[in-house]
């Protein structure tokens, strides 16, 4: 396999003059354009903007003014994150043609650190899916670079697909509500990191579920993803839910392996509903960590295993139904001819442009917060979330990280996905849903293969333990190589 330079290695080439930023940018844009015809990882490739930025960075190099953690690095961005002037749709026909007038905070920050935004990656419409198959009307489904008959995972499918496919240095800004970074990272065999809820500003993110959405990072290796995270994380006055705690230089703590890392192996996530080969591959990888000094012990999370999925979906759908109420064909996004009353026009626009899964979730979410049902569904799920968080907190008194397979299966074939009912689809989030509901930082690390497809190990840590979790991930990455 071709050796792909890590971010810092590529930046050395830029500063030594071996390669110009423009040359590298041209190469990756051309790769993205060519591969997109076959794999559909991008909804939009912004090559003019990228080349303009590359030229600007080359000028800075000449003037010896080059600086920034992401200097000259191509960054793909999940379509639900606003990039000024670049079509941003969250994979939905209702936002077709929408070119935001402002950048999301993560884009501002990444560009300030010298990042080159290359395009918007494919996803399930508004993040509503586990396989990036629920794309909006008129959008293409991204295909897994390991096997085109299989899914990239979702909902950040394009991000993971292209990160796995590219033979050049690149990182991706992705987003997770219930597992949308970890899942595709696992299916495509890349590293995916979801931080603590509030660690990264959500300003400029087209929200799915406001109390669950988290912007995170993906890369071919832990170091690259850690660099991206430290560039985009931190408090933001434009997002009142962003956390005030200072951001550490995560990438500086990856060399030294954590001593005697205490890993709690969540036993429920190795049993019912988990493919035997996947569970064996993950166990084998944990044994490798043990032989390198980690301490492994089984732990039970009965509440999260039993109720995590239901609580997650109720919270997610309820919040989604209110968040999507703003799309009505009036101020921005897709519109129709102005006919009929308010109600008739809005209904016509929403009915025309929302896809089937979006409609299903809006209806279920509306039901869960209707008068007479709010207590039974929405409030109950919110109370359940408290108990699920408490169970996690108890586990972190004893363990540094918790471990389980990221996904219960390897990337399924589209022909298999077609046979699943919506509920069977949702059940695929069994292992990723709980950590997301609790807002805990988690990572998916490629840990082996089965049937020639990648398998991911998921590690979860306590709130704001990004540094420790990335260090544990780097240790695992080293051991698995």
């Amino acid at each position, binding site marked *: 396999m071709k050796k792909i330079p890590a971010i810092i290695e590529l930046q050395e080439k830029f500063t030594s003059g071996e390669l110009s930023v423009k040359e590298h940018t041209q190469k990756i844009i051309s790769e993205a354009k060519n591969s997109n015809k076959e794999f559909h990882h991008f909804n939009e490739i912004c090559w003019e903007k990228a080349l303009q930025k590359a030229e600007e960075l080359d000028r800075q190099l000449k003037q010896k003014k080059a600086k920034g953690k992401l200097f000259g690095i191509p960054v793909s961005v999940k379509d639900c994150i606003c990039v000024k002037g670049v079509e941003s749709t969250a994979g939905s026909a209702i936002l077709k043609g929408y070119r935001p007038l402002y950048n999301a905070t993560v884009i501002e920050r990444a560009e300030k650190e010298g990042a080159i935004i290359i395009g918007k990656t494919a996803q399930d419409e508004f993040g509503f899916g586990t396989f990036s198959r629920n794309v909006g009307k008129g959008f293409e489904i991204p295909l897994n670079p390991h096997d085109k008959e299989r899914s990239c995972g979702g909902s950040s499918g394009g991000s993971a697909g292209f990160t796995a496919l590219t033979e050049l240095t690149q990182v991706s800004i992705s987003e997770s509500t219930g597992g949308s970074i970890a899942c595709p990272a696992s299916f495509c065999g890349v590293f995916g990191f979801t931080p603590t809820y509030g660690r990264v500003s959500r300003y400029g993110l087209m929200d799915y579920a406001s109390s669950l959405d988290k912007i995170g990072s993906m890369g071919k290796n832990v170091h690259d993803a850690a660099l991206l995270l430290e560039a985009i994380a931190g408090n933001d006055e434009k997002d009142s839910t962003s956390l005030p705690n200072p951001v550490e230089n995560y990438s500086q703590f990856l060399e030294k392996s954590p001593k005697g890392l205490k890993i709690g192996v969540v036993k429920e996530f190795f049993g019912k509903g988990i493919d035997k080969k996947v569970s064996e591959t993950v166990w084998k990888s944990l044994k490798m960590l043990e032989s390198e000094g980690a301490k492994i012990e089984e732990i039970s999370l009965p509440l999260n295993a039993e109720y995590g999925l239901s609580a997650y979906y109720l919270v997610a759908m309820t919040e989604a139904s209110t968040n999507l109420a703003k799309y009505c064909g009036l101020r921005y996004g897709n519109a129709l001819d102005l006919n009929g009353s308010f109600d008739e026009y809005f209904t*016509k626009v929403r009915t025309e442009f929302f896809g089937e899964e979006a409609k299903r979730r809006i*209806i279920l979410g509306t039901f869960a917060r209707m008068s007479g049902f709010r207590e039974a569904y929405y409030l109950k799920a919110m109370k359940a979330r408290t108990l699920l968080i408490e169970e996690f907190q108890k586990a972190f008194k004893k363990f540094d990280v918790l471990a389980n397979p990221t996904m219960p299966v390897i990337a399924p074939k589209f022909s298999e996905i077609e046979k699943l009912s919506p509920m069977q689809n949702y059940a695929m989030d069994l292992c990723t849903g709980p950590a997301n509901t609790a807002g805990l930082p988690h990572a998916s690390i490629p840990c082996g293969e089965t049937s020639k497809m990648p398998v991911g190990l998921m590690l979860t840590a306590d709130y704001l333990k990004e540094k420790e979790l990335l260090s544990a991930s780097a240790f695992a990455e080293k051991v698995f190589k």
Partner: protein
Amino acid sequence: MQKQKIDESFILKVAKNSRLKLSEAEAKKFLPQMREILEAFSKLDSLDVSKAKPSFQPLPLKNVFRKDVPKESLSQEQALSLARHKKEGYFKGPKVVSE
């Protein structure tokens, strides 16, 4: 969970509340799917939450205040630039009162 008979007319009613119009074929397709989903969610019935407070956010949040100083914002032209229907500096919406 509170028992509610989920039938096609109920789904159509909730859809209407959500400003969505489902065809009869869609409502027919959604019906067994939604029954299966709500049945799975009703698992939560067996969890005792009587002593738990709701977590509307995963981490406790404090009120965040900032100084109330005027800042630059979008110009009227920019704000209207993404709308298809506009007139004399305003967004143009559908009729509120029927004739």
